[in-house]
């Protein structure tokens, strides 16, 4: 039996609600893994697929399963297998949608994947790229138990869901690198403060000017191979005493 599904059959209200739901969760703090799980579940409901999963490439280009609509072992193995071969692998490498039908009949392209998919009861598989400009960061994988005629309109909906996943992932990556930068900014500021304080400590204690105090700090940090800010913190807390050690060679 061939199942034809098209956008006319789809619950359009449900579709609209899904996009609102996804847009809402993108605004607040969200857990990207939760969101991707939600997406795969919505794919199953809206597109009448039997299973859906999202795989992401790591910096070395290896694919990892990020979310799947169910945790059936045989399904998980199908994702695992696609690290080396399969529609997801090709979709990720080529950056374009890949479809595979009649998997139970075997495939020249992915013999191991086709055999495993057939054994798990899946006949049709689609993989849609998660694209960002010229990069592909992963793929959305859809599985049907029957041979299915997949219409262009339906694929457009699936691609829109894949695009939302892409935005969710990239937004999280950007915000975590911004968070790193925020931390660096604050630690730069704190370093500056403690270095100024250490200059004041040396200036007052040894009756030298701020410039001389800074030179002494820098020289000590360099000769002892320490970060200036770490040395400065030790000076301020009275744990270190640059300039009092005879080896510092300070003229004053």
């Amino acid at each position, binding site marked *: 039996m061939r199942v034809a599904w098209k956008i006319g059959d789809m619950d359009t209200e449900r579709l609209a609600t899904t996009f609102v739901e996804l847009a809402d969760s993108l605004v607040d703090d969200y857990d990207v893994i939760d969101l991707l799980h939600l997406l795969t579940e919505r794919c199953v409901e809206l597109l009448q697929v039997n299973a859906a999963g999202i795989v992401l490439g790591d910096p070395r280009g290896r694919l990892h399963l990020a979310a799947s609509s169910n945790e059936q072992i045989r399904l998980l193995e199908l994702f695992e297998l696609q690290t080396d071969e399969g529609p997801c692998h090709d979709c990720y490498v080529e950056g374009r949608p890949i479809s595979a039908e009649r998997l139970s009949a075997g495939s020249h392209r992915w013999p191991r994947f086709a055999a495993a998919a057939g054994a798990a009861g899946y006949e049709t598989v689609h993989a849609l790229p998660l694209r960002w400009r010229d990069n592909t960061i992963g793929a959305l994988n859809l599985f049907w138990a029957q041979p299915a005629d997949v219409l262009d309109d339906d694929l457009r909906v699936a691609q829109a869901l894949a695009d939302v996943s892409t935005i969710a992932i990239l937004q999280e990556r950007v915000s975590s690198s911004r968070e790193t930068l925020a931390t660096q900014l604050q630690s*730069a500021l704190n370093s500056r403060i403690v270095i100024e304080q250490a200059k004041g400590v040396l200036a007052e204690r040894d009756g030298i000017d701020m410039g001389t105090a800074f030179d002494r700090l820098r020289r000590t940090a360099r000769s002892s191979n320490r970060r200036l800010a770490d040395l400065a913190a030790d000076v301020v807390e009275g744990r270190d005493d640059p300039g009092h050690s005879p080896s510092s060679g300070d003229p004053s």
Partner: protein
Amino acid sequence: MLPTGWPEQLLTAGGTVTARVARLCELCVSSLDVSGASVQLIAAGPHRMTVHATDRTTDQLDDLQVELGEGPGVDVARSAAPSLEDDLNDSGAIRWPWFSPAAVRLGAGAAYGWPVQVGATSLGVLGFYRRRSGTLSNADRSDAVAVADAAAIVLLDAPEIGSPDALAWVIADESRCRAEVHQATGMLTIQLHVDALDAFARLCAAAYADGRSIAELSHDIVTRRIRLDA
């Protein structure tokens, strides 16, 4: 209310980080029902770095909060939540018994603070004051949240995220870092035999008692015109 299209104008316009933060603060004063605005970075302990303040009163109010350890900016740094006080004469006097009367003497009737946040990191404070006391409209309150978000973007906006150059503006700016304040603090640890936190507290207390700014007193300490152990 802020004019439409302000985020695009602000975020696409060039200029240094400090110049863009300055424009953001000026925009608040011209479009919202506030008299002054500032953006400060939160550093360790009581320390702040003012990126921009629109006027002298705003600067003095920010200083006052550091000196007294009270006020909307102090609350924001502690809780990462907005701190809003519509009436410094009335409810504010109970909330911040030291800060409120001192702020009123400087001509403030209301004071507000919003967190400038990046993920879980509280990066800074967006502060407003208004000469007149009274409610800040809901529209202005939501604009303030958007401005705080924009400030976070501008503060971290660098050609290459994570590059050391992105932070150069913080470390290089002598006056904004208030280098003399921290130098004076270091000197006071020796003069008073106390740790840096206590030394800074003594510096703030002495400035407040003399009715001078922390920066002015620090300058006199660094140039050895004044000693606090005398």
